């Protein structure tokens, strides 16, 4: 530890800390543009000048590391003149068009000029003219005249994201930030440069000229589009959310978002958003529909019993809404079928759930099935940050039916056959701890073959699984047997920390579980089978869209046929809504107050920015009405609180199950092409007009070798046959994809992937009719 004095206050900080960070700890504000803790020091803007005793010149606080006994002054005539000089320099070529700048009022150039700047400029010459409102891509604009050339954006894309799509061009006063060869930046993390920009140079196109700071209110919220649960600030104006920004949380996250989350907020005002009710396939006033549903409920309960009603929750509901529904279902109705909608069959016991802190401390990270870049993008950035910390090396491996490595994240992937992930994990455990009774039980039904993988591969995986001190696994839940492997692994590793980050949805499934619902796939299947068998008369889908989500589409179709009253609540009409008895419009994120639980099992509080549009109502409005129809008391404003006293913002820990379920030997007759199903945040069923250009290209993918075989160039159409069903898919060629695999997003709105089954499929190219 180093002891130093800043403005007369003593502080002790770690060696290597920069003066700026040490000062921040004391609450002393040192102005900076170029410096960002996540990007490291640069020293370009010269805004953070401070005086250090015994140094001949002013020092930049962001590049000067602390030293024992250092005495720093962050103000004084010399410092003030230095800062004033720098600000005057920054302003000579600045257009001073604050009145028409989106950043006006929330701009560091304004703030610092107000605090430290000269009252008047002395520069009389013409200013340099540069590009204004030029595109970075269709979502981000750049005003090169306002740019202070702090390089945050360029360095973020280059060093942090690893997709160097922005650069500095020209030199001296002619330097500009622009894209490589003038091509649009395609990275899904590019939007972060808007937040990083300290001035009004990088702007969100959807927010361009939309509001002034005094028109708007920013609320702390959470992005619900994937299980990462990034913290956000939402800007509401005139009843609409017009902007989402990242919200840094000290010591927890930098506030990065992916573009899916940053620009995908417009689902709330999407043309497909429903704001009126539907009754028997026709639009109907909400009051009438609600009343009808109440009467149906009463009929079922009175005539056939409360067990004939089942509730499936899904979508983007808060934990509190889930709890209200749970209480209504169990206490008012008396139902026992209260389950969570699932699009993959895997389940993770709470006791194994890890946090991002675990990830930061891990010495081995193993991706099981999941490609974070596609399913949980910001986790990809966290993995990159973890990898860049060279002082604590980390081993990054993958077990998946396809290559997981990317230019931005090298992953030592063991490519398995589809459905063989659990077997490969078991095989590695068998090599690493052959005598262990737990492992013996695990493989007692024939698992542990490791088909197609070398002994060296399995031994390497075994070492990573067993020798690492702090192991984190990231799992997509596609293959349910993996859960047994995790439980066995944790037991074999004994005291050494073993944690899993689940990347599957619904994004708030842990919250639904906390509220009382069962998130087990078997429970959901049981409800659907009961419905198919005629035992459920009324099925209430709360945000769930089973026909799109549930892995076996046929079971859902059969169940829908059999159920007498099919009722849905949601933001959009559910798939196959023609068959629904009633659909009522629900309130979405940003419209209700409540908590979401992310993939860490962490509760995150969201404050609404706007009211639900049209006739859309929050959950409790409907429940209160129906309770009234049933003539039963129901008060939702109770004392329930998802937070736990002991575990703070994490859900309370639970013991890991001890029973080891043996894994069966996998089916070992892989076909020529195997279908890989994978969650993709860009096609998660939630529409966006702002992002439609990004969502346009087909997300299903084929490998280069297969594309050549089928005669597909870049993009094409294929017919896929599986489980007796045939669907046609648009595919694009993916040079990273392992040959012999067809990658299809699951749970998406564009492809009915749940008509297919993962594993061997027949694929045929379809000749397209040229429309153009």
């Amino acid at each position, binding site marked *: 530890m180093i002891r130093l004095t800043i403005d007369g206050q003593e502080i002790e900080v770690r060696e290597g800390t920069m003066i700026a960070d040490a000062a921040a700890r004391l609450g002393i504000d040192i102005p900076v543009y170029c410096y960002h803790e996540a990007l490291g020091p640069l*020293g370009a803007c010269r805004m953070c*000048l401070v005086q250090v005793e015994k140094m001949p010149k002013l020092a930049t606080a962001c590049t000067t590391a602390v030293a024992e006994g250092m005495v720093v002054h962050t103000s004084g005539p010399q410092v003030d003149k230095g800062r004033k000089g720098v600000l005057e*320099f920054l302003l000579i070529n600045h257009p001073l068009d604050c009145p028409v700048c989106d950043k006006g009022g929330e701009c560091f150039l304004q703030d610092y000029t107000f605090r430290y700047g000269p009252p008047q400029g002395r520069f009389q*010459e013409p200013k340099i003219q540069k590009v204004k409102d030029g595109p970075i891509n269709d979502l981000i604009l750049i005003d090169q005249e306002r740019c*202070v050339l702090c390089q945050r954006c360029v360095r973020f894309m280059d060093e942090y994201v690893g997709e160097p799509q922005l650069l500095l061009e020209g030199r*001296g006063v002619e330097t500009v930030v622009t894209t490589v060869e003038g091509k649009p930046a395609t990275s899904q993390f590019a939007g972060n440069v808007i937040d990083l920009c300290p001035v009004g140079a990088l702007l969100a196109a959807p927010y361009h000229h939309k509001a002034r700071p005094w028109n708007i209110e920013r609320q702390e919220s959470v992005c619900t589009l994937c299980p990462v649960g990034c913290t956000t600030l939402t800007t509401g104006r005139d009843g609409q959310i017009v902007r989402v920004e990242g919200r840094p949380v000290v010591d927890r996250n930098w506030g990065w978002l992916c573009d899916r989350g940053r620009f995908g907020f417009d689902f709330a005002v999407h043309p497909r958003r429903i704001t009126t009710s539907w009754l028997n396939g026709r639009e109907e006033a909400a009051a009438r529909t609600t009343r009808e549903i109440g009467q149906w409920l009463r009929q079922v309960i009175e005539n056939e019993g409360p067990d004939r009603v089942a509730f499936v929750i899904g979508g983007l509901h808060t934990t509190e809404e889930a709890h209200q529904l749970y209480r209504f279902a169990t206490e008012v109705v008396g139902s026992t079928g209260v389950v969570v909608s699932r699009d993959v069959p895997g389940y993770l016991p709470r006791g194994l759930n890890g946090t991002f802190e675990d990830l930061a401390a891990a010495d081995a990270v193993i991706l099981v099935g999941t490609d974070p870049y596609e399913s949980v993008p910001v986790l990809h950035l966290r993995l990159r940050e973890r990898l860049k910390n060279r002082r604590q090396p980390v081993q990054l491996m993958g077990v998946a039916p396809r290559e997981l490595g990317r230019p931005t994240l090298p992953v030592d992937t063991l490519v398995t056959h589809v459905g063989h992930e659990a077997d490969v994990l078991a095989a590695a455990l068998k090599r690493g701890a052959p005598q262990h009774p737990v492992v013996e039980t695990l493989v007692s039904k024939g698992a542990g073959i490791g088909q197609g993988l070398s002994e060296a591969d399995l031994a390497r995986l075994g070492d990573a699984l067993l020798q690492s001190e702090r192991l984190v696994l990231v799992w997509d839940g596609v293959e349910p047997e993996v859960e047994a492997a995790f439980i066995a692994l944790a037991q074999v590793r004994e005291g050494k920390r073993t944690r899993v980050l689940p990347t599957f949805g619904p994004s708030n499934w842990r919250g639904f579980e906390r509220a009382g619902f069962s998130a087990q796939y078997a429970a959901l299947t049981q409800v659907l089978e009961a419905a198919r068998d005629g035992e459920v008369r009324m099925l209430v889908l709360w945000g769930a869209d089973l026909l799109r989500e549930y892995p076996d589409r046929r079971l859902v179709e059969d169940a829908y046929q059999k159920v007498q009253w099919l009722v849905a609540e949601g933001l959009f009409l559910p798939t196959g809504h023609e068959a629904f008895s009633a659909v009522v419009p629900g309130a979405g994120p940003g419209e209700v107050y409540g908590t979401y639980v992310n993939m860490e099992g962490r509760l995150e509080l969201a404050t609404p920015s706007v009211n639900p549009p049209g006739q859309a109502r929050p959950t409790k409005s409907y429940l209160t009405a129906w309770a009234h129809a049933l003539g039963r008391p129901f008060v939702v404003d109770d004392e329930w609180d998802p937070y736990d006293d002991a575990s703070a913002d994490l859900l309370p820990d639970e013991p890991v199950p001890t029973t080891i379920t043996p894994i069966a030997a996998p089916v070992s007759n892989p076909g020529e092409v195997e279908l890989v199903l994978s969650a993709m945040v860009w096609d998660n069923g939630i529409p966006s007009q702002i992002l439609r250009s990004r969502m346009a290209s087909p997300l299903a993918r084929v490998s280069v070798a297969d594309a050549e075989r089928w005669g597909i160039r870049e993009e094409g159409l294929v017919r896929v046959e599986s489980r007796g069903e045939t669907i046609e898919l648009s595919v694009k060629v993916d040079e990273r994809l392992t040959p012999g695999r067809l990658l299809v997003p699951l749970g998406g709105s564009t492809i009915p992937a749940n008509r297919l089954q993962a594993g061997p499929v027949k694929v045929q190219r379809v000749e397209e009719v040229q429309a153009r």
Partner: protein
Amino acid sequence: MSQTYYLLRHREVPNIGQIAVYRAHGGYEALRQALKQYQPDELVDLVKRSGLRGRGGAGFPTGVKWGFLPKDGRPRYLVVNSDEAEPGTFKDRELIENNPHQLIEGMIISSYAIKANEAYIYCRGEFLRGYEELSRAVQEAYEAGFLGDNILGSGFSLNIFVYRGAGAYICGEESALLESLEGRRGNPRLKPPFPAVAGLYGMPTIVNNVETIANVPPIVTYGAEWYTSMGTEKSPGLKIMSVSGPVNRPGNYEIPLATPLRRLIEEYAGGLKDGRQLKCIIPGGSSVPLLTPDKLDTPLDYESILQAGSMLGSGGCIVIDDSVCIVKASHRLVKFYREESCGKCTPCREGTYWMADVLERLEMGLGDERDLATLTDVADNINGKCFCPLGDASIGFLVSAINHFRDEFEAHVREGRCPLGAKVYDTANY
């Protein structure tokens, strides 16, 4: 009466750039001697004892710099800075164009001393001929067995790569040079870490000027004592001075350090042309403050020049006579820095632009009485607040010009024109 103590001694020899001719004049004997008689550390020690200081401008002791290399087994690199772009300086150009083998011999010895197996020459982009000569000479050296594996049976191996820059003055700054050499934008790097710790590709790297490295073979041949017998205690040895301006014999002159400035100008360079009166001298390239004629007797060594109010710098000695308008000269120099500022840090990027504009206005007679104060204050806001030395370099001449020739600046405002009738020709040229 050209001064040719050592580095320029072969100036008159035809085809000295050919390896055969160079060897016939004793070339590569120092290399043979170094490999045979010295252990690498002994060579570092020898260079330390010789007191050789970096000839690129900063004058940092070369042997001390070599001693900074961490002994951690990582690969090391030698990079020769041949990006000579300082206005008024043209010594390295002569060294690489006329006698490339002398540099290559120095590089091999130096690489051996610092245990580097790869060495790079970063050649200024505009030096096409120098680049071609170096490339040819390196090829010759490979063919003669002075480069490649197991040089002269010593077990020491070295490969030299010649790289041509793309025309940026800033790449003469060692860390920007390394960025450029790695294929990135030529912006200076944050120090620490210094290149000796983390330089080219993150490895320990020594960056030395062409003249510095060319001084190594004679130090091996004649010894450290020979070198320290010239110059002063703190500034020993030889230095090539490039003299330009209205003198009778402009050119490069090799002098023992501490030779008086007057002797360089009046004897070697033949004094000013007829009818010209000395106005001032820039002794060390465009980045340093000027010296007035009363400082003519200053000895040309690092310390004395510093005491006289300027710097020896790169040895680019620009003679300015009384026909030159000091405002125009300042404008011309500041404009150079404006064009060459990389744009990384605010004061240099914006300040040079501002100063050049004000100076242009002054020279055109459109200035007002506040301009001089503004100039001085802008220069003060640049001074010591920039990321790299380029910003400070941009104000060196200007500030000294305002101090010594304030009357002339004021006359421009007072008379509303340049009293010397100088014109700004290239106003629309940017």
